[in-house]
C-alpha cells in the first residue's frame, strides 16, 4: 500500500496513495510532475487490481509503462506490501529501456527496504533518510 516516483527527473514513493517521498530534478516544474504522477495513480490502481487475480508467486512487481505523454514516460512498480513506486523519465532519453527502468526500480526497492528496517522509522511517515536520498540522487545523475 504505498508509492515512490522518479523522473529523469522525479521519483515518488507512495503509501496508500499519499506520497512518502517525492524528488524531482528540474524543480521549477514540480507542480506539473505532481499532477502527472497523481493522475498516473489511476493507472497503477487499475493494473494492481487486474494483477490481483494472478497467482501470488507469479506476480511481477514491475508494472511497466503506465502512460506516456508528449514529453515524459511514466513507469510504475509495486511491492508486495503495495508500496507503489512511480518514475517519470524524459521521453527523449532513449537510452532508458525497460530493463534499465526495471533495475532502477529494484534498486529503489532495496533502498526502501533498508529504510523500513530502521527501527526509528514509523511506517507511514515521510521518508527522511540520507542514505535513501543519496541513492536516489545517484540514480538521477545516472539517468540525466
Amino acid at each position, binding site marked *: 500500500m504505498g508509492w515512490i516516483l522518479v523522473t529523469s527527473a522525479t521519483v515518488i514513493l507512495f503509501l*496508500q496513495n*499519499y506520497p512518502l517521498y517525492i524528488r524531482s530534478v528540474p524543480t521549477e516544474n514540480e*507542480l506539473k510532475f505532481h499532477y502527472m504522477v497523481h493522475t498516473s495513480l*489511476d493507472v497503477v490502481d*487499475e493494473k494492481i487490481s487486474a494483477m490481483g487475480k494472478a497467482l501470488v508467486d507469479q506476480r511481477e512487481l514491475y508494472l511497466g509503462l503506465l502512460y506516456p505523454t508528449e514529453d515524459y514516460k511514466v513507469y510504475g512498480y509495486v511491492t508486495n506490501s503495495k508500496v507503489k513506486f512511480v518514475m517519470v523519465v524524459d521521453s527523449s532519453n532513449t537510452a532508458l529501456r525497460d530493463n534499465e527502468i526495471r533495475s532502477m526500480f529494484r534498486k529503489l526497492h532495496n533502498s526502501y527496504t533498508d529504510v523500513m528496517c530502521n527501527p526509528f522509522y514509523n511506517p*507511514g511517515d515521510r521518508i527522511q533518510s540520507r542514505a535513501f536520498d543519496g541513492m536516489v540522487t545517484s540514480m538521477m545523475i545516472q539517468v540525466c
Partner: protein
Amino acid sequence: MNWTLCFLSMLSTLVLGVSVPPGALDCWVFLSCLEVLQRIEGCCDRAQIDSNIAHTVGLWSYATEKLKSLGYLCGLVSEQGPNSEDLNRTVDLLAGLGAERPETANTAQSPYKKLKEALSSVEAFEKHYLDLSHATIEMYTSIGRIRSAKFVGKDLAEFYMRKKSPQKAEIYLQGALKNYLAEGWALPITHTRKQLAECQKHLGQIENYLQTSSLLASDRHLTGNEREYFCREILSFASQQAGSPGHKIVLPMHSFAQLRDLHFTPSNAVVHVGGVLSVEITVCSQMPVPVHAEQIAINVHFSIEKNNYRKTAEWLTKHKTANGIVSFPAETSPFPTSQNSLPALELCEMFERSPSDNSLHTTGIICKNVHVLLRKQESGASLEAPSGAALEAGAHVLKCTAVTLEPGPNAITFRTQAKEPGTYTLRQLCASVGPVWFVLPHIYPLVQYDVYSQEPQLHVEPLADSLLAGIPQKVKFTVTTGHYTVKNGDSLQLSNVEAMLILGHEENRAVIYSNMREKASDAALRVQSSDKVTSISLPAAPAYHVIEFELEVLSLPSAPATGGESTVLGMTEPHGKHKDTQKGGHCMATMDHKVSIDCPWSIYSTVISLTFSMPFRTTHSLLSSGTRKYVQVCVQNLSELDFQLSDSHLVDTGDSTDLQLIPLNTESEQRIHSRQAVFFVWELKWTQEPPPSLHCRFSVGFSPASEERLSVSLKPYTYEFQVDNFLTLYSVRAEISPPPGTELCKTGSLCSLEVSITRLSDLSDADKDEALTEREDYFSTKLMYEVVDNSSNWAVCGKSSGVISMPVAARATHRVHMEVMPLFAGYLPLPDVRLFKYLPHHSAHSSQLDADSWIENDSLSVDKHVDDQLDSGSVQSRGSTRSVASSEHKGLPMPRLRALPPGQAFNASAGTQVLVIPSQDDHVLEVSVT
C-alpha cells in the same frame, strides 16, 4: 489493444525534431486523435466501445488538452474575446490546416469541421471544449479513474474562471481539492487552494474565502509574499468590518495558530475558592506577519465534582504533578501529509484487585483515545469541510485582551479568580480578530483545573514520638483555615484538665503559611489561662492558610499505684485515666488526657487526646537485718532522656507518729541515665509498737538533665505503696557441723545440720490467726520448716521438713537436727530453710467464710514464692498441701501452708558458707535424693 498507448508512443517519436509554428502541432494532434476515435467508433459496436473505454479515454483526454491549449493560444478563453494578434494567429492556423480531405467533406461531423468551427468563434469553442471535457470526465469516472477525471475537471474550472463564471468553477475545484487532501499531495493542494481562493473571492463567499486565505497564509509551500498577501486579506477584511458589530465569522483555529502547550500555576491545577489561578498557553502562530487579536478566550465547562476528597488540602499537598505542563500534539502539520497517520494509541494498563484479599482478578489494556481514533476513520473524507466550529457560549470564560501574536510561538497568560468549587474543563480556544473568530473547537487531551473549598481544621500532634509526663513537652497545633478567615481576636478555647497544664510563654510565635507551604508571616501568640479555660488568641490569617504554633504542655507525673492490696492511690483525674500497659516490664505506663477545644469557626468542640508516658517505673522492697528494717525504692528510667533526680523523700502517710524513716541516701542530687535504675534506701525505726502495715509515699523531684533552666517548677514524681507485716517474728539460723572427729566436712560424708528457729517478739497482732492455739496463758503457733537445696549442693538425708509447735513468746527457740551430705567440695552455701505457717484444715462452713482472706493471702504467697513452688517438688510430692490444693478440695480435712511474709522471718545464716573438702577416695558417689 491500447489505442492510446500505441498512438501516443508513435506520436512522441514523430513529433521529435520537427519545427512548426505554435499551435500547428496541437491542431494536428487534435485532428489525429479525433480521426482515430472516429475510426474506432466506425468499426466497433456500442458495447465494444464501452468495454474499451479504458483504452480510448486517453485519446479523448489528449484531444481535450490540445483543444484547450489551442483555445488559450487563440485568445478564445478570455472574457473579452480574442484580440487582433490572436485573430491573426487563428487565421494562420486555419490556413495551415488546408482544405478538408474529400472523403470526409460530406460528413456533417468530421474532426476537421469541428476544429474549424471551434476556432472560428468564442461560443463555438466553448461548446466544443465543454462537450469534449464533459465526455472525458464522464468516461474517466465510469472506469474509476477518479484522479484523472478531477484533473480534467480542474482544467475545466480554470476555463470557467477565465470566462468569469466562478460558480461553475467552484464545484470542480472543490472536488479536486478534496481528492488531493485525502491523498495528501501538498503542492497540488496549495495550487488548487489558490485557485479556489480566487474563485471564492469572486463569488463573494466571505467565510469560505477567509478560511481558504487563512489556510494559504499558513501554507509553507507558498512564498512569503503570497502568504503575506492572504494574511493581509484577512486583516483588511477584519478592519473593514470592525464598525459593524454582531456579525461573527467563525473559522477553525488550526490554520491560524496551533496550541502547543498549557501550563497551570499552581502547577497541580488545584486552587481554593477565591484563589488565583493562571493558565499560560503557548500558541504557535502560523501567520507570516504579526496579528493583533482583540481577545483570546478559553471557554470553560464547569461541573461539580462529586468526589470531594480530591479537593482537600491533603490531596493538594500530596499530589503534585511533575511540572504541570500539558503538551498538545502538533495536530495538522503545515501540509497535511496523510490523514491515515492516525494519532498514536494511548494505552494504559489496568489492574483490578478484589477488595477482600487484594488478589488480582481482572487485568486489561485500555485505549484512552479510542474516540479520536474512531472519529478520524469515519470522517476522514470531510477534512476541508468547515468542521462544526460552533462557538460555545459558556458562562465561564478565561479572557485575555489585546494580544499581538507574532509569527511563531507566543505565550499568553490567563488569570482567573476561582469562585465556585468544582471541576473546570477547558473546552474551546478562540481568538478574535475583529469579526473573525478563530476557534479551536476541542482542546484535547482533556485539560482541567479544580477549585475546592475546605472546612477549617485543627490538628494537634506531639513533636516527639511520645509525650513524657512530668516535664514540659512540645505539642504542635496546626490550624488549616480553609474558607474561614481568622480575624484578630479569634481564639482557641482549651478546657483545662487538672492533670495537664498548658504553659504559655512570652516568646510563643505562630507562623502563617500559605496554601503552598510558603511562609507568609509570623506573629506573636497570646496564651491566657484562667481556672477552667486556656485561651489562645490566634493571629489574623487569610482563608486557605495554615497557622502553626507550638505549645508546651505539662502532664503531672504520677506512678501507677502498686504495693500490697492497695487500689488506686495516685491522683484521680476527671479526664485522665490510667492505662497500665506494662508488658515485659519495659513499656512505659501511659495515660490519656482529653482536651476539648472550642474553635471560633464551629459551634462544636473538638476533642483531642494526648497520650503521655511515665518516664519512670518504681518498685519497692522491704529489707531486714535482724529486727532492723529498711525500705528500698528502685526507680527505673524507661525513657530515652537522662534525668536529674533531687530531693527524694519517703514519708509515712499513716498516723503513727513514733515511726521514723531515716534516709541512708548520701547524695541529694543524682543523675539517672536512660534505661538505668537508681535505688533509695531508708531505715525504719520505731519506739513503740509499730502498726501492722505501713503506708508510704515516695517522692522525688526530677528534671531533664539536658536543660539548664526550666521556666516552670516541676511537680515531683510520687509513688505510694504499703508495707505489711514488717516486724521480724522469727529468726532462722542454720549451722552445719562436720561429723564428729573431723575438722571439716567432706564430700560424701554425712554432716549434721542444726536449724534453730527463735521467736523474737511476744504476742502481737500479726500472730492472731488460725494457727494460734491458746492453752491457759500459753500461746503457741504451728510452723512448718522445710530444708531445700535448690542448687543441689547438698543431699538432705532423711526427713527434710516437719511441723513444730512454736511458743509465742520472746526468745522461745526450737532446734531441729538433720543430716545432710555435701555433694561437692568447696565453699558451699547452706541449704535454704523455709518457714511456713501451718494452718489447720477448715471445717466445711468456715472455709467458705474465709475464702476472701484466702485468696488474698494466696496471691501474696504465690507472688513471693513463685520460684520455690516450681522448684521444690519435694514439698508437693509429699502431699503436704498447699493452699491452692486445699481451696480446690474444699471440704476435705486438709491442713494448709502459708508462707510467712518476708518481713516476719529473718534468715540469720543467709550468705554463710561451709568449707567442704573432697573425700580422699576417688570413688564416684551416687546419691539419689528422694
